[in-house]
């Protein structure tokens, strides 16, 4: 190997190592990000006071109360925490179960719980028939009054 390569090859190796190994950031380079969130912490225990260690929890959000929003397992002290989605105000329901024992708690978040009514609405058939009735009624009324009177 020519001497040139004896020098260049280690330099390339050092350069590659330099790219691969972690380097210290400049002391004056800083980046601060933050998030404000509400974290809810729950502690589950039996009536005896014994923690529900390892109990399963299921969280239901207000927008889709039939589908679990988050599931998980309590720690050894029966404790877990979560940050609810603030875009879903209303009542958040948390069910905790273990070995045939269970309970559910309801936590209102973001002001008044969202209340949705079971609005009846009109079917397409109903809308169509009602429109036809109105149109026919208007036409019929107009024709009735525009008829020629018999002498």
């Amino acid at each position, binding site marked *: 190997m020519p001497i040139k390569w004896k020098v260049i090859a280690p330099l390339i190796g050092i350069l590659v190592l330099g790219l691969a190994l972690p380097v210290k950031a400049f002391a004056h380079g800083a980046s601060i990000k933050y998030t404000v969130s509400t974290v809810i912490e729950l502690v589950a225990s039996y009536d005896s006071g014994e923690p529900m260690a390892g109990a399963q929890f299921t969280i239901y959000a207000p927008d889709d109360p039939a589908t679990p929003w988050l599931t998980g397992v309590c720690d050894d002290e029966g404790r877990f925490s979560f940050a609810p989605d603030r875009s879903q105000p209303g009542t958040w329901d948390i*069910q905790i179960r273990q070995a045939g024992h269970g309970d559910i708690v309801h936590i209102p978040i973001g002001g008044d719980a969202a209340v949705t009514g079971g609005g009846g609405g*009109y*079917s397409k058939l*109903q809308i169509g028939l009602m429109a036809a*009735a109105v149109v026919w009624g208007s036409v019929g009324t107009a*024709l009735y009054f525009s008829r020629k009177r018999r002498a």
Partner: protein
Amino acid sequence: MKKRAFVIPVIVLSLAGIILTGCAGGEATGRLQVYANGEDFVRQGFVSKDGWSINFDHVYITLADITAYQTDPPYDPHSGGDISGKAAVSLDNVYTVDLADGDENAPPILVAEVSGAPAGHYNALFWEMIKASSGPAAGYSLVIIGTAEKDGRSVDFTINSNEECGYSCGEYVGDERRGILEKDGTADLEMTFHFDHIFGDADTPMDDDLNVSAIGFDPFAGGGQVDLDMAEFHLGHVGEGHCYCECN
């Protein structure tokens, strides 16, 4: 003749519009079903905390004043008291059901269903256990008939209770969320009866609250007909969810 040809359709269609408007102005509804479940303990039998292998032939329970509620805020059975809600569906009849009906894999017993129930989330349930006025459980609110075996000894037993209890329950707690009724859909609720609370369960640690408070089968080992004090036990649940209970 021409005049009549216009006037009659106008009247008919106007009436149709009024009727349809009235129909559609009603609330969204669906079908709500109410089940009674004695769990695998009743269907498959189990071993009591004192070692009796118990199998059930019949478990007659008489239910009345069954009412499902949509409560907001949700009813808290730990606080007790009456349930009040923005919508309620009541079953007027008295029902005597056999929780042991069917084989060991039988589904829970469908007690009744209501069509035209207002849509929404039924998150509270009330019912009463009352004395049956006729039928196989006449005079009793609960009749448990079966056989228990231990150490080669077999005992045929009939356990009766004539106590009447009211159960005020919150939301069903279990594998699935229940009671959410959508327009034109079907939802169900369940009255769940935990018989391990009476006899205890050999598969549960003996120091568990369940076994500490259960009386086991020994008090009934004499066979024959024995009366049971229901107020001592939390028999009625909604899945694993507890109920507030008052007996008299």
